[in-house]
């Protein structure tokens, strides 16, 4: 089997320092996306543990796996969870979740948690969709837009490219800056066309990094168009898998002439949705207990 360059690393961590048993409300947010599945475990609204893995071809399984993995070694059992909120594409099919909330609401809520209440615009770049979200100081969505057809498949598109160019997906972003001058973006962000265009460029003798630069900037441009339709207000943050790709992120910032708040070292931005879900779970528990 050939090396799968698109495969990004899966991982889990326990970050909570105090004893979870002293917590009053223990919740989980499970984000089953089109490409990745994430679980955030929270104790009294503080991130305690999480996991991030690839979504399989069955969403209840994916949800269960990512939850189990997040709980692993923490000593928390599934039955100890007071409430579970599911989100992401697979949210409608997580049998053990108490409630489903969309990833749009969850990303806004999660961003508010990670970066604080000054966040007003969230850009979520996921596997299938891109979302430009505006929210208030509580992290409640006030407006949102999702990509149209021609810009679908953002994350998947990046996987296709990393495979095509035999560049490990985590290195795509950095590599795309190893060009002397920024090339014209590829004319299309459509995965199908971009791929055939890229092949043509390679045959013309373009180096990989230049092709990647052209693709990253095309993707950035498309995302910026979406953002401009909603209107970008500060503070601006980026979540989702592609947010880790500096090749896209920096080009988005450059075109918007705005910088996003820097990545909060404590939290993986791909987890924002799961964290938002876990926070909603907490709010729902509080509502029930009232």
């Amino acid at each position, binding site marked *: 089997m050939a090396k799968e360059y698109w495969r990004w690393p899966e991982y889990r961590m326990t970050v909570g320092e105090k004893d979870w048993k002293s917590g009053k409300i223990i919740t989980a947010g499970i984000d089953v996306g089109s490409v990745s599945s994430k679980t955030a475990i929270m104790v009294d609204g503080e991130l305690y543990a999480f996991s991030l893995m690839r979504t399989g071809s069955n969403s209840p399984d994916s949800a269960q796996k990512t939850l189990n993995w997040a709980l692993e070694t923490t000593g928390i059992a599934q039955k100890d969870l007071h409430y579970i909120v599911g989100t992401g594409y697979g949210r409608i099919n997580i049998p053990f979740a108490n409630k489903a909330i969309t990833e*749009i609401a969850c990303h806004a809520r999660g961003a508010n948690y990670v970066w604080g209440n000054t966040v007003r615009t969230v850009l979520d770049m996921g596997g299938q969709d891109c979302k430009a979200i505006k929210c208030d100081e*509580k992290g409640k969505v006030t407006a949102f837009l*999702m990509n149209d057809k021609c810009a679908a498949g953002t994350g998947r598109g990046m996987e296709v490219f990393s495979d095509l160019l035999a560049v490990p997906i985590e290195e795509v972003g950095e590599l795309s800056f190893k060009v002397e001058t920024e090339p014209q973006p590829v004319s299309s962000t459509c995965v199908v066309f971009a791929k055939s265009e890229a092949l043509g460029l390679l045959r013309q003798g373009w180096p990989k990094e230049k092709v990647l630069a052209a693709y990253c900037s095309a993707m950035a441009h498309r995302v910026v168009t979406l953002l401009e339709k909603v209107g970008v207000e500060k503070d601006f943050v980026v979540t989702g898998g592609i947010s880790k790709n500096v090749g896209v992120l920096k080009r988005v910032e450059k075109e918007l002439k705005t910088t996003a708040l820097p990545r909060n070292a404590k939290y993986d931005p791909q987890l924002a949705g799961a964290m938002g879900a876990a926070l909603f779970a907490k709010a729902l528990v509080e509502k029930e207990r009232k």
Partner: protein
Amino acid sequence: MFEQMQNWYDKRHAYAKEWKKNHPGGKVLGCFCTYVPEELVYAAGVLPVRLLGSHEPQSVTEPHIFGMYCPFCRDVLAQGLQKRYDYLDGITISQSCLHIRQAYTSWQMHVPTGFSYYLPMPNCVQSPHALSYLKGEFLAFKNALEKWTGNEITDEKLRQATELVNTNRRLMRQVYDLRKQDNPPMTGLEAMYMVVSSQMTDKNDHSKLLEKILKELPGRKMDRQTGARLMIIGSEDDDTAFIKMVESVGATLVVDDHCTGTRQFWNETELKGDVLTSIAKRYIDRPACPSKDWPERRRLPHILKLAKDFNAKGAIIIQQKFCDPHELDIPAIIKDLKKNGIPSLFLEFDVTVPIGPFRTRVEAFLEMIGQDDLF
């Protein structure tokens, strides 16, 4: 309560064939647009049926209509090419958008029926000259119908037909009025079945059922929560799967601005003086299709009034992909609704809609306009 209407809609072809059996010599006329004057068609003893698509992927229209035209017009033509309307005796279109006109002209060429008539409905309905022009065209249409059917269309017959069509319009408005209640006794899906079926059944049958429904409807108890009250705005829309999805995630559609909805039946023909002129006036004054809403934007106040009267808390705006007339109105509608405190969600429709991605958008929209208790 509305099962019969759903049945009519689902089995539209069986209904029309049955109608012909029960009306020996009766003709069925396929109509491509709701600007076709039903009064005239009924007066000729003909059953008008609105031609709609089937929401199934197909591969037969590609040689006839270039893919940049709206999926609806292709879906409609596909029905003809697949011989699903083989019982039609004629087809007609009134001038509206170019997209659907292609379905008509290709149908005319490749699925010939005995009678086909292009009715040049004025586009500038706001012009003071539109009325006399349309009256003249209605006269020509009337003559063509007479020649085709051999039935003379007298003023008396026109009056009777007007009453028949008006009654149906009036009854549907009465049903719509009940949707203004805090907990509407019906779903948007049921309303959709009602209006769409009225476009493909004999108004006599449809009104009879409506009268029965109107007796029971006010006391009807729904076994569902109303949830968020939404309005739906857009082009042709008989996408029941989409409506069902919206109403399954915590919302109820309470009113619409669709040509498969209120635009078709909202106003009545007022018989005053010359009958044909009265009927023409009705079509000039009806809630406009965007292709005819210029130079002034009269749709905006109309839509806003519907939203207020029906207490809509948000609006879903849908558009057939590539539909230019709607695309040219939507930014103004979104802006106007927003200015008046009504948030909206815009979605682009195709023959089949991707329920999953749309569900996410709709749910997020509902979360946005509600769920304050989680913060």
